[in-house]
C-alpha cells in the first residue's frame, strides 16, 4: 500500500499532465499502523509533529513552572517538586544541579522540539502540498523518516531526564569546557552524551524534512502556480527549509567535535584547563570555536522559528481582514533579506568573548540591517489590516497578538545587536525578555494562529471559540506581565541562569517582582493546558465543518474535500489562475476569489 502511494507520486512528477490524472482512494485498504503510525501521508505526519510538539511543550512548560517556583520563592519548599523530581528536590527544595538541568532542557526542548519541529514540521508538512497543489511531498518516505528521527531524538532526550547524573545542565547552548568535562558538573556526564546524540538525530530529521520541503516547493507546484502566486506561507516555509539545510549541518559538526573532545582525547575546544585538582593535557583548542559553530546554526535557528510564524500571520491577517496582503513582493524580498542576513550575524551572540573589536563592528552593522526587512514586514502587516473588514476570529486575534509581540521583542534586539550596549546587557534578564517575546511567545502566537486557522482542515471540525478567546486573552496579557518587567531587571544588570539572587546586594530588591512573575507564569501555563484540552476535545467533539471553505479563503487547501484523503484532491488537481490574495469584489457580492477561479474577461492578473 505504501508502494501505491509512492508509485502515485511518480505520476505527479510528470508535471504537465497531472491535472488530468484521476486519483483513486486507497484508504480503505490501509492498516491502522500504516495509516496513523508509519504513515507517509503528509497530513498525518504533520499531525504527528504537532501532537509530539504539544507533548514537548507541556514538558518544557512544566519545567519552567518548576524553576520559576525556585526563582519566585527561593526560601520556600514545595511538595510538588519532590513528587516530580524525587531525590533532586529533597524535602521540596530543588537542587541547583537540577535547576540548571531544567533550564537547559527547557531551552533545548522549546527551541528545537517545539518551535522548530512542532512549528515548521507541522505546518510545512501540512500546508506545502495543500497550498501549492501537490498530492504529497516529493518523497513521502523521507518525510516519514524525518518524523521518526525526530521521535527518536525526543525519546533519547526524555530518557536523559531519568539517569542518575541528571540531564545536560550547561544551558541550551552547552558551551564547552563546561559541557565537555564531566568534572565540571554532574550534567556534563552521561546526560550530555545523550543530549548530543539526541541533537545529532534531530539534525538528521531536520535535514530530511527541509530537503523535502525545498524539492517539493520547487518541483511540484500545480499548473499555473508560479512562484509569485504562492501564498506567503509557502515562501516562508521555503526559506525556513533553506536556512535549516544550510545551517543544521554546522551544528552537527559542533556536536561531533564535542563528542570527540569528551571521549577521544582531542582538544578542539579545550586548552589550559585545571579542574578537579589536576591540569588536563589538552592545549591548543579554543572554546570560542564551539561558540562560532553553535551560533552559525543558533542564529539562523531563530529565523527558522520566526519565518513560518511570519508566513502564517501574513496569510491569516489577510484572510480575516478580507484584504489582500499589502506589498506581496516586498514581503517576499524581506523574507529573502532576512534569510541572507541570518547567516551573517551569528557573532553578535559573542560580543563579550573577547573577539576582535573590528569584527564586532562588522557584526553590529550586519545585525542592525535585519531591522530593515523586519520593519518592512511590520508596516506591511499594519497596512494589510488598514481599512480591512476584520473578523475577530481566534486565529485573527493570535495573528494580531503575534504582530504586537514581534514589534515589542524585535525592538529590544536593537539594544542587544549594538555591541556597545550589549556589553552591559549581555546574559542578563534583558536577553531573556528579548528572545522570549520575539521568538518564544510571538512564534507561539503564530503557531496558535495556525492551529486555530487550519484545525478545520486537519480534523474537519472547529476548535471551541470561547475557549480560544479565553486562551488568547490570558496568554497575551500574561506574556507581557511575565516578560515586560524582565527588561528592567536586565537593565539593572541582573544575570540570567541564577538559582538564587537573595545574597546579591545589587539584585535582591527584585524578590517581590520575581514572585509576581512566577505566579503569572504558572497561570499562563495552565491557560496553555486549556488550549491542549480544547484541541483534543475538539478533535472528537468539535463543531463539524459543513462547507469546504469555512473562512472564505483563497488558497488551494480550501478546494480539497472537507477531510481530504491521501492524495488531497478527489479529482484532478485544480489549476491556478491568480495569486493567493485576491480578496476583492468578485462581481457577485462575494469578497474573495479563490486561486482556482479563472480570470474574468478583462480582469488583470496581479
Amino acid at each position, binding site marked *: 500500500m505504501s508502494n501505491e502511494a509512492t508509485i502515485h507520486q511518480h505520476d505527479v512528477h510528470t508535471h504537465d499532465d497531472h491535472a488530468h490524472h484521476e486519483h483513486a482512494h486507497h484508504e480503505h485498504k490501509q492498516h491502522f499502523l500504516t495509516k496513523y503510525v508509519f504513515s507517509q501521508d503528509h497530513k498525518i505526519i504533520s499531525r504527528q509533529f504537532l501532537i509530539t510538539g504539544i507533548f514537548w511543550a507541556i514538558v518544557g512548560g512544566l519545567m519552567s513552572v518548576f524553576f520559576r517556583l525556585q526563582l519566585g520563592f527561593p526560601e520556600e519548599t514545595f511538595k510538588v517538586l519532590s513528587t516530580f523530581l524525587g531525590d533532586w528536590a529533597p524535602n521540596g527544595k530543588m537542587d541547583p544541579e537540577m535547576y540548571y538541568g531544567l533550564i537547559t532542557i527547557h531551552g533545548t526542548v522549546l527551541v528545537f522540539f517545539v518551535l522548530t519541529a512542532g512549528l515548521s514540521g507541522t505546518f510545512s508538512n501540512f500546508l506545502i502540498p495543500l497550498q501549492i497543489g501537490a498530492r504529497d511531498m516529493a518523497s513521502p518516505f523521507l518525510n516519514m523518516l524525518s518524523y521518526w528521527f525526530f521521535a527518536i531524538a525526543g525519546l533519547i532526550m526524555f530518557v536523559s531526564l531519568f539517569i542518575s547524573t541528571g540531564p545536560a545542565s550547561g544551558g541550551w547552548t552547552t*558551551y564547552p569546557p563546561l559541557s565537555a568535562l564531566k568534572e565540571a558538573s554532574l550534567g556534563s556526564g552521561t546526560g550530555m552524551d545523550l543530549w548530543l546524540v539526541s541533537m545529532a538525530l534531530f539534525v538528521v530529521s531536520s535535514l530530511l524534512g527541509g530537503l523535502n520541503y525545498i524539492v517539493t516547493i520547487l518541483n511540484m507546484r500545480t499548473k499555473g502556480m508560479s512562484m509569485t502566486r504562492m501564498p506567503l506561507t509557502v515562501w516562508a516555509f521555503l526559506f525556513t527549509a533553506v536556512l535549516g539545510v544550510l545551517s543544521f549541518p554546522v551544528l552537527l559538526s559542533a556536536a561531533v567535535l564535542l563528542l570527540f573532545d569528551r571521549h577521544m582525547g582531542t582538544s578542539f575546544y579545550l586548552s589550559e584547563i585545571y579542574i578537579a585538582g589536576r591540569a588536563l593535557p589538552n592545549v591548543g583548542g579554543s572554546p570560542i570555536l564551539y561558540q562560532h559553530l553553535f551560533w552559525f546554526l543558533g542564529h539562523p535557528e531563530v529565523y527558522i522559528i520566526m519565518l513560518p510564524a511570519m508566513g502564517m500571520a501574513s496569510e491569516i491577517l489577510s484572510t480575516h481582514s478580507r484584504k489582500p496582503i499589502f506589498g506581496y513582493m516586498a514581503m517576499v524580498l524581506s523574507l529573502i533579506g532576512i534569510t541572507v542576513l541570518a547567516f551573517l550575524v551569528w557573532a553578535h551572540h559573542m560580543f563579550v568573548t573577547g573577539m576582535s573589536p573590528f569584527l564586532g563592528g562588522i557584526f553590529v552593522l550586519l545585525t542592525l540591517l535585519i*531591522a530593515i526587512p523586519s520593519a518592512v514586514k511590520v508596516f506591511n502587516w499594519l497596512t494589510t489590516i488598514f481599512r480591512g473588514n476584520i473578523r475577530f476570529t481566534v486565529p485573527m486575534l493570535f495573528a494580531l497578538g503575534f504582530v504586537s509581540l514581534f514589534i515589542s521583542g524585535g525592538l529590544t534586539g536593537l539594544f542587544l545587536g549594538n555591541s556597545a550596549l550589549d556589553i552591559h546587557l549581555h546574559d542578563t534578564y534583558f536577553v531573556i525578555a528579548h528572545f522570549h517575546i520575539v521568538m518564544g511567545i510571538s512564534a507561539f502566537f503564530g503557531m496558535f494562529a495556525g492551529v486555530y486557522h487550519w484545525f478545520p482542515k486537519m480534523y474537519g471540525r472547529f476548535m471551541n471559540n470561547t475557549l480560544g478567546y479565553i486562551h488568547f486573552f490570558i496568554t497575551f496579557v500574561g506574556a507581557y506581565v511575565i516578560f515586560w518587567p524582565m527588561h528592567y531587571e536586565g537593565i539593572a544588570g541582573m544575570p540570567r541562569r541564577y538559582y538564587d539572587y537573595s545574597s546579591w546586594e545589587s539584585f535582591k530588591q527584585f524578590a517581590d517582582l520575581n514572585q509576581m512573575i512566577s505566579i503569572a507564569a504558572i497561570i499562563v501555563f495552565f491557560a496553555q493546558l486549556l488550549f491542549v484540552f480544547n484541541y483534543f476535545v475538539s478533535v472528537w467533539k468539535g463543531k463539524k465543518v459543513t462547507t469546504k471553505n469555512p473562512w472564505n479563503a483563497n488558497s488551494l487547501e480550501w478546494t480539497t474535500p472537507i477531510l481530504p484523503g491521501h492524495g488531497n484532491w478527489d479529482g484532478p488537481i485544480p489549476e491556478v489562475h491568480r495569486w493567493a490574495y485576491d480578496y476583492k469584489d468578485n462581481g457577485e457580492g462575494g469578497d474573495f476569489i479563490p486561486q482556482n477561479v479563472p480570470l474574468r474577461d478583462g480582469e488583470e492578473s496581479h
Partner: protein
Amino acid sequence: MSGLLLVLLVALIFVVLYQVARSSEMIASIQGEEIFDKKRNKILAYSMLVVYAAFMIGIYCCHLYMMPLMAPEAASDHGQSYDFMFKITIYVTGAIFLLTQFLLFWFAFKYQRTGDKAPFHFVHSTKLELVWTTIPAIAMAVLVAIGLKSWFTMTDMAPKGAMQIEMVGKQFNWISRYPGPDGVLGKRYFTNINDKDNILGLDWKDQKNMDDIIVPNGELRLVKGKPVELIIGSRDVIHDVGLSHFRMKMDAVPGITTRIWFTPIFTTREMQEKTGNPNFVYEVSCDQMCGKGHYSMRAVVIVETQAEHNIWLKKQQSYYAQNHPEVNPPAAEPTPAPKDTTKQITMK
C-alpha cells in the same frame, strides 16, 4: 493531598469553562450564527481597545514601580557614555513602539467588520514601501554610528598609566592578582597550579612574580579617577566578569586572555551616599553559566581614593612571601617609575 486538590480544582475550572463555552455556542445557534457573530465581533473589537489601554497603563505602572529599584547612575566613564547611548536608543525604539502598537490596536478596532463596508483593495504602494524602508535604514545608521564610536573607544588599548589587575575565574569564585611594587604581573601557566600554595600557577622562575599580590576572594581595589585594565582569565570553564555598575562585562575563557578597561568615577563611599544605602557595594557577578555554583560566584569591588589604596597596598604581603615564610624576601622598593604599558604581559 493539597496537590490532589489543586489538580481537582484545575480540572473543575476546565469543565466549567468548557460548559460555558458549549452554552455560548448553543446561544449562537439559537440566536442565529450571523447575528451572534456580529455581536461578538463588536465586543471583541472593543476589547482590543481595552487591552490596549491596559497594556499602556500597565507599562506606565511597571515603570513607576521599577524605577526606584534600578541600578544607580553608572560608576565609570564608559558607563556614563553607555547610559547616554541607552537613552537615545530608548527614545528611538520607544517612539516606534508607541506608534506601531497604537496603529495595530487602533486599526484592529477601527476596521472591524460591520458587514456593509465594501472591501477596500489596496495591494501595494511603492512610495509607502520606500518610506518605511528608508526611515528605519536611516535610524539604524544613526544607532550604528553612535554604537560603533562608543564600541571602538571602549575596546581600544588602555591608556598609559592604567592600573593592571588580573581577574581569574574558577568554579566557583574569583581570584584577583595585583602586580605589586614592580607594576608588572609575572608569568603564569596552568600546569603550575595547585590549590595548596599556587592557586594561579605563577612561575617562580619569573622574578616579576615575587612581589605579586593575590587576593583569593577576588576583591578588586580600584582607585577613583584612575583607569584600570582588567586582565581576565579562567582556570577551568568559561566565566564572565560582570561589572553591572560600571556597565562592563567580559568573558573569562580558559586558554585565552581577554581584557577590558574603564575609569571608576565614584568611590564606594560616594555611591553609598548617592544611593542612600549604607550597604551599597559594587559587585562582580559571573555572567556566563559555569556550573552549579554559578549563582554564588560573587566578588566585591571597592573603589577608593589613591591614599586609601596606598594604605591597603602597604598592608599586603606578596603571595610568594605568604607561601614561603622561610625565604621572606625584603619588600621591594616601591618604585613609582613610569610604567611601560606597551609592554605586554604574557600569561603563559
